[in-house]
């Protein structure tokens, strides 16, 4: 049984860099491949609706008539990337969390 088992670590910590960051001013960059936010490049989209069908949380709505549209409810998205894998035209991608949505400030 030891009484001051933690003592060494306490002394070490006095001279170490903090483990935390000055968030929100300093953000950790995402790793390559992190699933952050779903982005679409609509130029190639053929509005086939496969992404909407595969999505486990019904976050995507695709319509063809009367207008072609691709809508995405970002609050429903669970960031699973199932749609990205399913898209035949590869127009969906997972962007890092720091990237802004088109309609964001």
């Amino acid at each position, binding site marked *: 049984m030891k009484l001051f088992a933690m003592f060494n670590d*306490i002394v070490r910590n006095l001279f170490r860099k903090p483990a935390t960051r000055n968030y929100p001013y300093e953000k950790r960059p995402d790793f390559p491949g992190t699933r952050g936010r779903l982005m679409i490049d609509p130029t190639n989209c053929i509005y086939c609706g496969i992404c909407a069908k595969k*999505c486990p949380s019904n976050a995507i709505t695709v319509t063809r008539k009367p207008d072609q549209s691709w809508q995405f409810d970002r609050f429903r998205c*669970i*960031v699973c990337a199932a749609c990205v894998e399913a898209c035949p035209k590869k127009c969906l991608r997972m962007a890092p969390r720091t990237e802004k949505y088109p309609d964001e400030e």
Partner: protein
Amino acid sequence: MSTIVPFGPQHPVLPEPIQLRLALDDERIVSVLPVVGYVHRGLEKLAEQKDFVQDSYLVERVCGICSFMHSMSYCMGIEEMMEITVPERANYLRVVWAELHRIHSHLLALGLLADAFGFENLFMQLWRTRERIMDAMEYTTGGRVMLNACCIGGVRRDINDEQKAFVLNQLKEAEAELKRLIPVMTDDYSVKKRLVGIGILDKAAAYAAGAVGPTARGSGHAMDHRTTGYIAYKNLDFEPVVETSCDSYARTLVRCREVYQSIDLVRQALDKMPDTEIKVAYKGKPCGEVAIRCEQPRGEVLYYLKGNGTDHLDRMRVRTPTFANIPALMTMLNGSQLADVGMIVLSVDPCISCTER
């Protein structure tokens, strides 16, 4: 005439809501009534409404700590039903992620325990180390908590050499840090005062209550489902960790030693990984019934799946390890002191959201 004291659903030591109605005789507990249902989300019902591929994302949300193992168990069940043979590399990758999950889950549990007995410093340090494991998971799969790396027929992502080096490096650093921190958990005077001899669950009682995981292993049962050799465990070298003192301290020791064991298993798996495909294509729909078991950080999980040849499953039933440990917890609590309840509850590492699904 006994007094009823409600412990929870909101209590500083509980990370999740569960209520224990404790009947007290003075300070001694004479009976316990657990009340669950605060975080029920109806995931089993939802699984019947989504198709079976979407369910593999859904079951990950059963638990926020052992998420990968839930999707792994589910995928193993569907694969057994549809007779899909998973490529060897995928099996090893599954071991890597499952063991990374075990490390981070155990560090979380040890940290929460340290927090509960007032050792804030140890709690912060353990979680700092845990962050390394989270980074390793994020780099290899793209998610810190919800890996979404498992799919029916294999895994969705591969680990390349750069990622492998990163994981090994994080494990090396984490191991060095743990070599300093774990002795504090196991040797410190005040920690031992709080844990040794508290929450006794003897070997026969553990068996009778159907305890699983570290709770059973802390009571001297060498019960570890990994020894049956599912996925790639049959090719890896490990022994179940067993402690025999049957108290909260034994359960904590089991977790401490399992962290090292898991670090070793990740290294073995990364080392022995063969170069094959990571995923196979499959055709058809699941049909039939299957029950599958896996060893999670908290013990053995049971998945029962029933398919009817359509996209939707007839039934999915999950029995999580904490659910199996609640009777054991009640046995431990009976006869103990009110001041020890927090320690005893955390020593079984309860995951209430799992339990209620």
